[in-house]
């Protein structure tokens, strides 16, 4: 069967509309990625200037177990951050979407507006809050917590900073999924004898799984590459892979090694994301069967 001229024109129009985005991504994403890839086989001269080349030495340097140790730690922190964000964001999004009434938009704005302030500035605020002489510890000590208890330079502070930094990326997709939820489905669940918990578990949660999946990815990916929280709130035992990459570019002046490390991180993230998406797709398919 041949396409009608009208259908062909429509397809051509959509192809043209794709063009700006395609050019943008080709130049600024694939182009940058290509340069990064080339640089990962490069060298540096005596003055620290990077040069393109074809050595595998940078990838060989990554065999040092330290890099894998830091990557595993970053994976753990990013996974914990995603789960905690979900635990915090779901009830908030649920309350706003299903019980916010006419204040829904105002409440969502209240969630989003604090994130207008720059992340770095907010993290510096956390440093002051969590400092040994800061208000949080002063209050805790006043309440009887031992003087030796510290917050700064602990995993709790780093993960707390990550959760605070990225929780909005979880609230919004979960809220959008809950907004789309047909309330009559919940009512039907209750009419069919399901208690509130059963209905939530068997109706609401499956219906909003896609929003939660999107949120988990949106939080996990930036959290994995983040270096600000670990740098400002963590100690030597909380170093994350983002800090090491930043270090290669701005401290050690070894851009080729930094590029190779970035490629490794991208491969790890790609593997994690594919496994996760495949699993999520399979579950969604089973749920709708």
């Amino acid at each position, binding site marked *: *069967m041949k*396409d009608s001229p009208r*259908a*062909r024109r429509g*397809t*051509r129009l*959509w*192809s043209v509309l794709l063009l700006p985005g395609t050019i943008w991504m*080709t130049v600024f994403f*694939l*182009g940058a990625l*290509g*340069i990064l*890839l*080339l*640089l990962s086989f*490069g*060298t*540096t*001269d*005596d*003055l*620290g*200037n*990077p*040069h*393109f*080349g*074809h050595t595998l030495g940078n990838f060989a*340097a990554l065999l*040092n177990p*330290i*890099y894998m*140790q*830091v990557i595993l730690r970053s994976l753990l922190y990013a996974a914990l951050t995603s789960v905690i964000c979900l635990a915090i964001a779901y009830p908030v999004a649920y309350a706003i979407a299903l019980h916010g009434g006419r204040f829904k938009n105002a409440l969502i704005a209240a969630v989003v507006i604090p994130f207008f302030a720059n992340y770095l500035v907010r993290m510096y605020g956390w*440093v*002051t809050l969590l*400092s*040994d*002489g*800061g208000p949080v510890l002063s209050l805790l000590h006043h309440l009887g917590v031992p003087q030796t208890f*510290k917050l*700064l*330079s602990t995993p709790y502070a780093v993960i707390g900073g990550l959760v605070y930094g990225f929780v909005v990326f979880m609230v919004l997709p979960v809220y959008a999924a809950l907004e789309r939820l047909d309330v009559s489905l919940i009512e039907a669940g209750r009419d069919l004898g399901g208690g509130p918990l059963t209905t939530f578990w068997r109706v609401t949660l499956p219906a909003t799984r896609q929003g939660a999946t999107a949120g988990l990815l949106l939080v996990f990916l930036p959290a994995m590459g983040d270096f600000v929280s670990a*740098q400002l709130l*963590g*100690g*030597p035992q909380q*170093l994350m892979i983002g800090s*090491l990459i930043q*270090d*290669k*570019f*701005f*401290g*050690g*002046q*070894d*851009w080729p*090694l930094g590029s190779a490390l970035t490629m490794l991180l991208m491969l790890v993230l790609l593997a994690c994301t594919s496994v996760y998406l495949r699993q999520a797709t399979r579950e969604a398919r089973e749920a709708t069967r």
Partner: protein
Amino acid sequence: MLLTPPPRPSGRPTRRSVLRGAAGTLLGAAALPALSGCGYLNTEVTADDLPPVTPEIDGDLVYFNWADYVDPTVLSGFCSEYKVSITQANYDSMESMAAKIAAGNKYDIIFPSAKWTQRMAQAGQLRRIDRSRMVNAPAIFKGYPYFADPWYDADSGHSIPFSMYKTGIAWRKDKLGPALGGSWSDLWDRRAAGYTYLLDDEDEVLGVGALRLGYDVNTGDQHRLARITDLLATVRPLLRGFSSDDYTNILDGNAWIQHMWSGDMAAVLSQADDASIYGFETCREGTPINSDCYAIPRDAEHPGTALLFIDYMLRPENVRKNIAYIGYPMPVPGTEEDYRKLVAPFPDCVVTLDDLEHGYHFGNTTAAGNQARDAAWTQVEAG
């Protein structure tokens, strides 16, 4: 029932064609053999072939510096005296400064550290400066002969010194007593376990290990670096972090011992409620000395204004204002007493001619040496 997939509308990309396209783009990029061995940044043209700069107004000044590293009243004084404006931009690291310049941004005046002055001058990225054309520069080189031919720039041909500082240890007297031992081993003080910060700086941290072991602070020797990392691994369990926010760590109460740049002690003095609880010492194994310079990048569009600006900045009255504002000493004869008074509680902050001559300077090494040092630093930082 067997289902056949519906025919795809012509023109819509399939997953395979998208993947093929992406792979083609990447392979195309990877197959650029012409790039092999090329510099990623443009370092081909040398500024040494350009004529010497004449100190005269040739346009408004484009100024590139750390934030808050010059008294704003000194900057505004230059504008009103010479009827020019200053466009200010700031960098947050030497590496980002160099990358911006190499990427083609045009600045008239920059303030590189000695190590970066050497690196940029050798790469032909700095204009030659003829100090005989300046009014206030000769006094510096007479009073501080060290700078007449420093290690980083032969005959100071591309730079004029701006500020000086050294690295030592700051500590909390109320926690650890009125004096420490005057040695880098004080960083291993168990009384401050969990309250000790090292600077987040490869040279400075490896330098501590090198000085304790009696090695060259710029060593790129694998064996020596292994000894250094072994030694520094023993301080790691005591550390609370690697951080260059040295005076913030001290003032917030997070650090009892802080590996510290001397210039930042002035900030402690001016911001602390009670500065008497802090001390600063230099160490007998050796003191790293550093200096920042004025320099004019190769692509400066107003080099004449820049040179005039440097000469203006070197006037003793402006130097005094800058010392009071940023807390770093400057090698301008007649201003030493001002700095001595400013940091009176911390006499070890003062940088003398003897310190300059006999201190330890962080310089550039070979590419292999840099790589070995970077690997050692990763080991110390992430170990």
